[in-house]
């Protein structure tokens, strides 16, 4: 306590005694923050779990309309970006700011690629009318007739001639499942796997909200990376000052982790 050198260390804020204390506080704070992120998504996963238990047939049926290939590519992209981000942390620890810049750039590129592919997917869904809740108005029904399960969803979405007239958003093309509270109890529905189950829109509500919130987190992560990039360009990071990169990377890994759960839960059901 008697030595006041830490006060003169430019990296240590006035209310910390030592560099170690500051570093550990920052790390702990970040972890606690990430706990709140997990709980934020936890609410959504809970929603998913309850509705999947209530309506398993909806999930089996509707997940066929997601593109496994694009989703898989996105998963690989995100996992790679986690690697480059971890590499950036190592580079910051070594004080190699140039490498930090390069690694963050690659990570940023991966993030852009992820969002780009996501945009393509979203576009398919929009064109196919696979929008959430009361906006759900699948166009393939008109095109492919009675047996949508046979239609390859990706090609159906891609090949379908986009209709000239914009859809009437207020009226769902599928008759609303006016089953009241009984709609929640669909035990007997499982037997009729071939038919279009009721409440398919639910799946797309979950799909849009969960991937949408995840996408927002990717965007936020990109913001953090740009900030880190600028700081690395100024050569700020070194063995005594890499907390920011470290925390940014932790955040990015959580964003990655959420996707790693989202991918199988949404895309790989059937």
């Amino acid at each position, binding site marked *: 306590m008697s030595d006041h050198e830490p006060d003169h260390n430019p990296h240590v804020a006035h209310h910390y005694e030592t560099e170690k*204390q500051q570093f550990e506080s920052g790390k702990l704070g970040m972890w606690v923050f990430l706990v709140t992120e997990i709980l934020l998504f936890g609410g959504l996963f809970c929603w998913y779990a309850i509705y999947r238990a209530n309506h398993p047939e909806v999930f089996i049926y509707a997940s066929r309309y997601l593109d496994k290939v694009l989703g898989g590519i996105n998963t690989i992209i995100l996992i790679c970006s986690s690697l480059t981000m971890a590499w950036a942390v190592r580079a910051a620890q070594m004080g190699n700011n140039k490498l930090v810049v390069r690694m963050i750039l690659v990570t940023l590129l991966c993030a852009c690629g992820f969002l780009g592919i996501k945009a393509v997917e979203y576009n398919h869904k929009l064109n196919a009318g696979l929008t959430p809740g009361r906006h759900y108005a699948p166009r393939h029904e008109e095109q492919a007739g009675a047996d949508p399960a046979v239609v390859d969803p990706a090609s159906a979405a891609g090949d379908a001639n986009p209709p000239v007239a914009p859809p009437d958003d207020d009226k769902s093309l599928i008759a609303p499942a006016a089953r009241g509270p009984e*709609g929640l109890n669909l035990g007997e529905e499982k037997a009729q796997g071939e038919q279009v189950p009721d409440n398919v829109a639910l799946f797309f509500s979950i799909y849009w909200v969960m991937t949408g919130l995840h996408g927002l987190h990717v965007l936020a992560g990109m913001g953090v990376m740009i900030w880190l990039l600028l700081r690395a360009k100024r050569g700020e990071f070194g063995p005594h000052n890499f907390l920011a990169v470290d925390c940014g990377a932790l955040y990015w890994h959580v964003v990655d982790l959420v996707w790693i759960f989202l991918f199988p839960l949404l895309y790989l059901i059937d």
Partner: protein
Amino acid sequence: MTTSLPVEHGAEPTGTEDNYLTCDRGIKSWIFTLDHKRIGVMYLIFTMGSFLLGGVFALLLRTELLTPQKTIMDADTYNQMFTLHGAVMVFLFIIPGIPAAMGNFVLPIMLGAKDMAFPRLNLASLYLYVLGAVFAVLAIAMGGVDTGWTFYTPYSTETNTAVIPMTIGAFILGFSSVFTGINFIVTVQKLRPKGMTWFKMPLMLWSLYATAIIQILATPVLGITLLLLIIERALGVGIFDPALGGDPVLYQHFFWFYSHPAVYIMILPAMGIISEIISPFSRKHIFGYTFIAFSSIAIALLSFLVWGHHMFTSTQSPLASTIFSALTFSVAIPSAVKVFNWLATMFRGRLVLKTPMLWVLGFIFLFGIGGLTGLFLGALATDIHVHDTYFVVAHFHYTMFGGPVMAMMGGLFYWWPKFFGRMYKENWGRLSALLVFTGFNLTFFPQFIMGIRGMPRRYFNYPEKFEIFHQLSTIGSYVLAFGFLVVFFTLVHSLFRGKKAPANPWGSATLEWRCPSPPPHENFIEPPLVTDPYDFSILEYDEASDCYHLKPSAKLAEDGEVA
């Protein structure tokens, strides 16, 4: 150290003369301050402003209920008034009230730290609070909300009132609360100075730590719930809409998963304040320190397991209800541990019946009633009978008002000399505590009787037979309001006319009383000696300055320890 320190600190601007209020001037020095004390003071002003707003709504409600028919407003306005009263009081006043306003101020000082771990995050939390409040005011300006503060679906997705601004406001306030929680946890874990072990921490810090655990674990779930409600309302995704396969009761589960722990965000720091005040004002070491400390943690953990008791009548399975009922009773154990330990602290103590202690006694009495009536509601059979009646209203006002508000007022009078360096008129303070206590019981005790006899909550009209109870209750609310006016004038008067406060007017042994009143910018002129926070034998009374000092022998011990 002993030779170098005074010299170094003498050279700094934060000498004995300057304090956190005077070391920097101008409006900018407040808006951009990173000092936890200033942030705490700003929080105090904002939460008290919200308290006033929510209180005005409450008075309007009570005035409307003077007669069985329409008195001053129509039924729709009445619905909006009780919604706004609840939303403002819960989200803007009582949740941030003790942790963000008082906790911000006292936590680092009690710990012996210079500031919170993340001062910028702390300021961001204040900004978010203000932003959330702006949305809430916007919702009021856009015609208010009439869903009740719980925003239950499906009504909240169908009503034409300003649900979206209000829920966005609550969503943002949630993040403000999360940021405060992160700061508390990290500060307590990492910024404890040498000698400040977990079990030398004042109990207030244990309470705030437990509060922070709830804040970070529960609030994000409220965030996502409100977000889903907003998405549902704006886009109609059908999550809570049975016509689309959704389930409106899921909203209740999500909502109470946060909002039940949230009542412990309110009560835990209040209990911390009680532990802080009761020991010095009984001139006796706190009884059962470890039990009180761990009961805070136990309450925090149990609080996550009882949300279903809000839903006994909401299609929950009887088995789930039974389990939730049993778990609910188990919360009574750590709560009772605290109450009995406080009583044991007072037992054979020398009670000093000054203003803070009067609020504390009021707290124990009212919280006792609130807690015991909670058992009626936790029991399945009686809950079915009194569910959604005035019995519930009375119960949660006894716990939420009789608990946190009484404690917050006690804390305000206890730390006021430390916050602003002024002593208030003792007798005025005592009078205000007495008025609030009387007014409170007059307001809410009749509501228990009404509730048992079947008066449902949130009703605009009522049968004649309840008129007398409603009138008593309304008169009580006026007494209550008058009591708070006295509080206000006592405190404001002290700012201008009050005697200068000494460093330690009450003879407390926690660290915040070792630094001058008000504290300097970095809290301590020299690093404080960490002692048992409830050992008063190290203090001696100085009659000349009417204040307490560390005994010279204690100071010697400090030098010895350092050497």
